[in-house]
């Protein structure tokens, strides 16, 4: 169990790091997909099977594809930006800030007593339980979610339609 955690973590980290640093956009997307896989693996490791499946379905299935589409639409498929262009103005400041944030949060984790407690019993959840919970005490967020998604759908349709209207 311990080794799996470290391997998957490494893959996830690599995916994330590459996704952010590569020049070629498509490569970035691919590393992003790798990152999503790593995370899904972690979910399975943590016995959150349903979540892992959902993660794969939504993120890899939908989001990654969506980004690909976006890249194609914005024409510079090859991602041939120069290094300067890639990292924008004062690029180094972002890294420094991110490092500072990470450092402090890690510091907080080390100091905090909760993280030390390793629970002996590992929780696991079945899809039935999740389904019952979704419909029972989480029904309001569930419905709200439905509304949100439809709104996003409509939004997308509008933007698309606006495009058609203007051309004609």
């Amino acid at each position: 169990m311990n080794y799996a955690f470290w391997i998957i973590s490494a893959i996830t980290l690599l995916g994330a790091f590459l996704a952010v640093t590569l020049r070629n956009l498509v490569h970035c997307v691919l590393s992003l997909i790798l990152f999503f896989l790593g995370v899904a693996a972690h979910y399975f490791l943590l016995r959150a099977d349903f979540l892992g499946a959902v993660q794969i379905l939504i993120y890899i299935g939908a989001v990654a594809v969506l980004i690909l589409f976006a890249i194609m639409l914005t024409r510079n498929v090859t991602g041939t930006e120069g290094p300067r262009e890639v990292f924008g103005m004062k690029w180094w400041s972002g890294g420094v800030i991110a490092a500072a944030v990470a450092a402090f949060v890690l510091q907080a984790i080390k100091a905090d007593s909760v993280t030390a407690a390793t629970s002996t019993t590992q929780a696991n959840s079945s899809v039935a339980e999740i389904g019952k919970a979704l419909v029972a005490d989480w029904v309001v967020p569930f419905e709200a979610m439905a509304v949100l998604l439809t709104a996003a759908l409509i939004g997308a349709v509008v933007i698309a339609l606006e495009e058609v209207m203007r051309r004609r």
Partner: protein
Amino acid sequence: MNITLGHYLALSTILFAVGLAGALTRRNAIIVLMAIEIMFNAAILNLVAFWHFKVFATLTAQMFAIFAVTIAAAESAVGLALVIAIYRHYRSVDVDEMKALKG
């Protein structure tokens, strides 16, 4: 040594930091969106870890995670739609050029 909650927290923090660094440094709006997605996943991972290590008795954390995932999906969709709209206007997705909302 077995894996504890701390490990997962550390992992998600590092992922979050990487996502943040990406968002801050990359000039391409799409990459920025991808970085934000990374940060999202880091957060959700964190949630699941909390759930997993029985910090809270109920399923709340996982429920959270599920909803977070869906929201993240919707959010990225909208984000990309915006980027495309801006692209159509500016003919470029360079974040630095998008200064219309100057103070």
